[in-house]
């Protein structure tokens, strides 16, 4: 699997994501600067990492979403290349319109930073294939603006089409329907606020995140 991790000014989880990908796939991802106009040839997986791109100025992910590289990322997503947006990456995906809804300030107003239980709502996706349906896993969250909101019609459609990938099992940030992660229509773009890349090795204190990348590798390398 030839991964690319996009780096925006202010991204700070790019190296963790790269480390997780190298650990699971055996290959170092290409680190792609946001100002590049194209992706390296043969990229078959794209990661948008967590962090504080552009300092969260204007809105989290708003300016990163308008970076030159995002044209290439949107095109790749349109061709079916798997894309994951983690935390700030999820915010970027909603700002580009690749995913619906918006991530707003946490309902409790505090920055939340702890491991959270998540239910795998759909284990049939290319990201969740290595999990059991309904399995409860633990990933850490670390965010101030993780409150997922969308109108009722959109929420009903996400639920009805099995596009809710992960659901919080306790109160974290006020997200509508406790939605922690969602997929696009075609099922190749996943956005989630929790950090699977921070739960891939024993030193992390949790390893549930590893299977997300393993599932991805299985599908892409197949």
């Amino acid at each position, binding site marked *: 699997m030839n991964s690319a991790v996009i780096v925006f000014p202010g991204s700070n989880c790019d190296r963790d994501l790269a480390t997780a990908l190298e650990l699971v796939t055996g290959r170092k991802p290409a680190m792609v600067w946001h100002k590049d106009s194209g992706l390296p040839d043969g990229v078959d997986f794209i990661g948008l990492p967590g962090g504080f791109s552009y300092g969260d100025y204007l809105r989290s992910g*708003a300016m990163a979403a308008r970076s030159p590289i995002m044209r290439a990322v949107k095109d790749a997503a349109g061709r079916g290349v798997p894309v994951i947006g983690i935390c700030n990456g999820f915010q970027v995906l909603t700002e580009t319109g690749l995913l619906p*809804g*918006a991530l707003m300030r*946490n309902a409790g*107003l505090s920055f939340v930073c702890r491991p959270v239980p998540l239910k795998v709502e759909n284990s049939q996706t290319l990201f969740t294939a290595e999990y059991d349906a309904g399995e409860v896993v633990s990933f850490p969250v670390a965010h101030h603006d993780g409150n997922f909101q969308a109108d009722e019609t959109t929420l009903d459609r996400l639920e009805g089409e099995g596009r809710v990938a992960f659901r919080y099992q306790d109160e974290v940030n006020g997200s509508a329907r406790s939605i922690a992660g969602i997929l696009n229509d075609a099922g190749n773009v996943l956005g989630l606020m929790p950090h699977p890349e921070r739960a891939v090795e024993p030193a992390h204190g949790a390893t549930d995140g590893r299977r997300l990348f393993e599932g991805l590798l299985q599908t892409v390398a197949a």
Partner: protein
Amino acid sequence: MKARVFITLKAGVLDPQGKAIHHALEGLGFSGVNDVRAGKLIELDLADGTADSDIEEMCRKLLANTVIENFRIERLQDA
């Protein structure tokens, strides 16, 4: 020429920051505050003759997230 863009949350979108400000005002002894919603003001210094439609496009494409926000543009008269 100058323009001001006011960005506000759409009606019905929860505003916990507005609520926090509300509580803080009450804590200071202001009893007649029914509700508080917080928005943003962006001031633009633009080339003379910039079209309204350009400013609107700036709002739709970047300044406001139209999923959850409204915008209002005010062109300022030169002093």
